[in-house]
């Protein structure tokens, strides 16, 4: 069993499922001999050949549209957008086709595609390389949106995403691609989609997050503990649909909730979670629900990007705000 990084968890899951299922193909720009600009598909073309790992022309509409076509004919394409900022041309085929094919044909066809992309800021990348656009996907019915935050969750959730008979947008927090190493056994065991993972138990406040913000959120929990505050930390993992039960249950216990995400605040996934609590968890709330998010601005170029991203300090501050109420 090897200690691997998150991005290696992605590679391991791809390799595992390509081995197990001959209909799985990897499809995208530079995924072949180059192994992807983050090396997420490193070695796969060498191992499985260039009719399983296909470098495509530079055309994202084409990538998404052809994936729909392939998936409808019995294949399981795992497409890569090179960065989340280049997924926008894919919206039409994902929303109007991939997400609807089963519905439109009453199950005659389905569309088991995974649309992978490195996602989020914080790596000093060039312009348009640092967006957090999970809410865009999360709002469209018919597609799941999944975000791992550790090597083992990358492995287990990607396996589940590939095996799922419906389309999944799989966003990989590039900032923590190589942050942690974890022992991950390549046993082909998937993790469940549509459920949250409770990363830390606590009793005073619930911190809800996903993706790379798990790092700052866990750090905030440690900070809070120093002041005697016990924070529960939940990794939402699947942001569409959301496992609200787990979150409501936690808030029933803590009475306080801070939601943390890197994406802009307005109509972000955090809004959905707060709204869910304002409906189903309202009687347990002892304090306003706080959201610590990216601002409703463009993600700045790299010299300023850390001014944009939610910091541990902001999370601790918001948690403390909720603790002012009894």
């Amino acid at each position, binding site marked *: 069993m090897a200690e691997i990084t998150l991005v290696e968890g992605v590679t391991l899951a791809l390799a595992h499922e390509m081995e197990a299922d001959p209909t799985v*193909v990897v499809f995208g720009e530079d995924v072949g001999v180059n192994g992807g600009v983050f090396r997420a598909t490193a070695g796969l073309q060498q191992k499985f050949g260039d*009719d399983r790992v296909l470098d*495509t*022309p530079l*055309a994202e*509409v*084409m990538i*998404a*549209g*052809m*994936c*729909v*076509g*392939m*998936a*409808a*004919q*019995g*294949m399981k394409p795992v497409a890569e957008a090179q960065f989340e900022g280049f997924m926008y041309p894919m919206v*039409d*085929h994902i929303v*109007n*086709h991939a997400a609807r*094919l*089963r*519905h*439109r*044909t*009453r*199950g*005659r*066809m*389905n569309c088991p595609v995974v649309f992978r992309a490195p996602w989020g800021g914080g790596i000093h990348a060039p312009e348009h390389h640092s967006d957090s656009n999970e809410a865009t996907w999360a709002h469209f*019915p*018919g597609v*799941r949106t999944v975000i791992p935050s550790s090597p083992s969750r990358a492995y287990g959730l990607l396996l589940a995403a590939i095996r*799922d*008979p*419906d389309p999944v947008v799989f966003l990989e927090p590039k900032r923590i691609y190589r942050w942690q190493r974890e022992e991950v056994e390549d046993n082909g065991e998937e993790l469940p989609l*549509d459920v949250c993972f409770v990363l830390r138990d606590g009793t005073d406040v619930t911190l809800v997050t996903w993706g790379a913000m798990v790092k700052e959120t866990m750090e905030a929990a440690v900070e809070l503990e120093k002041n005697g505050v016990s924070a529960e930390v939940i990794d939402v993992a699947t942001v569409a*649909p*959301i*496992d*609200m*039960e787990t979150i409501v249950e936690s808030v029933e216990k803590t009475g306080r909730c801070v939601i943390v995400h890197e994406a802009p605040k307005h109509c972000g996934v955090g809004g959905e979670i707060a709204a869910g609590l304002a409906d189903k968890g309202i009687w347990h709330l002892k304090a306003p629900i706080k959201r610590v998010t990216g601002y409703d601005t463009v993600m700045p170029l790299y010299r300023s990007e850390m001014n944009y991203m939610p910091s541990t300090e902001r999370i601790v501050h918001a948690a403390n705000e909720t603790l002012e109420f009894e």
Partner: protein
Amino acid sequence: MAATIASFKVDYFQFLDEEGRLADGAQIPALARDTRQLESLYRLMTLTRVFDKKAVALQRTGKLGTYASCLGHEAAHVAVGSAMREEDCFAPMYREYAAQFFRGVKMSDVLMYWGGDERGNDFSGPKHDFPWCVPIATQCLHAAGAALAYKLHGQPRVAVSVVGDGGSSKGDFLEAINAASAWKLPLVLVIVNNQWAISVPRSKQNSARTLAQKGIAGGLPSVQVDGNDLVASRWAMDKAIAAAREGRGASVVEMLTYRLSDHTTADDARRYREQDEVDTAWNKEPLTRLRNYLTDQGHWDQVKEEELLSESAERVNAAVAEYQDRIDNDPQPIDAMFNYMFKNLPHHLEEQREIARRFPARGGQH
């Protein structure tokens, strides 16, 4: 150094002229001599026209939603459908009924679809054929994806997609040409150029001499035919499909025809085009010329024509009855919208389904 490094051309083909006479000089395809097959294709063209008229009438009387007529496109569409094999894959736009009928789609399926019932897309044709496609030109990339799947699996199958003159301006179509070129896909991209994209005439899509030449961008063989001439259209399809099946890659076929109807029943073409133009186009329409040809060959006559028309009317009426019966007596349940969202319905959708069941629309379905 100055050198011509690449040259291209677009050829035009018409074998049956507007009067239904075989062109001379040209090398006539075998189909022109196969009057039995021509007769059977003519029968489908006629059935389609009878169906189409009925569908428009159903819309006018509130029994069908918006409907896109295929009036005038029958030769092009029959050529496409009849050139394909069952195992080939068809990715239509929204008015190629004749092609689909040939492949086994039922008239009642078409009515279900335009009648606002998803089950129309679960049609009786080949299960691997794509559903109707409203977002213009997107189907071209689905066909390209299907073609790549067949190629990767070593299957001798061909994907065929149809796009309009309007749709040929869209990146999806142009990227499909590029993809076809990149992977040498077993793909045929048919442009049914009916001169209009709703109110926008062909001339405004671009100023190029042909639309077929878009294929040159990818180095694909590209040809223009008279799309009202079944023989030329079918011949071009046969050639393109054979090339695709034999591993010689994709082609673009532009079929010149004319949309004799409004764009859909929601449109009023009198707002933007002259009746003169439409009248002229009627002189070139595909049924008459094929009928004239068959008649000249001694293979068709007024009696057969009338039999065909009344037989077609009967079949169409039966289809309408089937449609009406299904939506009246076997409507989709209130919660039909939930049942095919996912293979495994997520929990929150179960909750929402309960709400939907509890609050059906007043007056139920429409």
